[in-house]
């Protein structure tokens, strides 16, 4: 149904440049940036989750506010590099159910991140730490979502059905 759209996107000069340019600064570096963004966003979020689970418990949660810009940096690096990678192979990603699983897991992880932010009081003396019990399941859910999103992301390279709009579908026995 979306084949005309995929065909158009794959024929744009940016998409062709991403796939075919011999430059290190097209696909390879953008892929590397996507991994650094992953390290910043998911990585710092993991550190936060560990703190919420009670490790390094005497580090004031309020101080983690200062990490927020780095989480944003990681998120934007990955939105932009992710869109570039998607433009390179739109059919490959968008016809693979695993891609939507990855996006859904990232969405849940980001919602958890946003919802736990209220536990980082601007004022250290605020009694938000008392609510630690309700925060732990969220921290565990966040860890599970990021691990799942990373795994789904890795499996994209092995589960795609069509590489490009005019390529022959790869038989995947587990797909109906």
């Amino acid at each position, binding site marked *: 149904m979306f084949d005309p759209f995929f065909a158009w996107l794959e024929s744009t000069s940016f998409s062709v440049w991403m796939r075919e340019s011999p430059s290190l600064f097209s696909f390879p570096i953008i892929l590397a940036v996507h991994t650094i963004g992953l*390290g*910043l966003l998911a*990585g710092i979020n993991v*550190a936060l989750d560990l703190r919420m689970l009670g490790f390094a418990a005497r*580090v*004031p949660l309020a101080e983690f506010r200062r990490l927020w810009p780095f989480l944003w940096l990681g998120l934007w690096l990955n939105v932009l590099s992710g869109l570039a990678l998607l433009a390179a192979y739109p059919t490959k990603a968008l016809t693979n159910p695993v891609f939507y699983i990855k996006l859904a897991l990232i969405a849940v992880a980001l919602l958890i991140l946003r919802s736990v932010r209220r536990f980082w009081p601007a004022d250290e003396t605020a009694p938000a730490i008392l609510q630690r019990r309700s925060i732990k399941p969220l921290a565990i859910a966040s860890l599970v979502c990021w691990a799942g999103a*990373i*795994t789904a*992301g890795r*499996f994209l390279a092995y589960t795609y059905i069509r590489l490009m709009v005019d390529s022959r579908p790869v038989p995947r026995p587990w797909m109906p």
Partner: protein
Amino acid sequence: MGGFQIWLHRKLASATIVAAFMRSDWAWPAVESIHFIGLTLLFGTIVVWDLRLLGLLKRVSIAELHRLVPFAVLGFVINATSGSMFLMTEPNQYVYNPAFQFKLLLVAIAGVNVLVFYATVFRRLRLLAPGVEAPRSVKLFGATSLICWIGVIVCGRLITFYRPGLCRAGEPLAFLVECIPPLSSR
């Protein structure tokens, strides 16, 4: 170096049990996922730690934040193990790969950096009260670590774009071999 690389290649290739496991269905992608989860654990906790050394989270006690460092070590152990499994399966794709060689160099620099850090400033740093900025020498350790680990990620992702080909017959081997020598190709 060439002799060492060929020796290493042979040694790694002798781990046939690991290679057989890695060639089974879904093992390679699963271990790759674990490698990326390890990366997240290592990089995330190290970034927070390095930013503290650089003066960003000044009000956090160094001694308290240090409790996150074991998770970075765990991430490193996960990745050294999963990484070795790739090496034992396709040794010639790594031993002669310039991106992989550079990656290992950066890991080694990060390793020396952390050893010197613990041997010199760490003990005094631990006693630093929250709110006090770390001295400039300490910032250098933080910056070195951050740059190295970013470089490790970049080189790691570039491995696949620098796959070595077979060396041409009769060609003398360079100091650092970046093609697969004929004698050791199986």
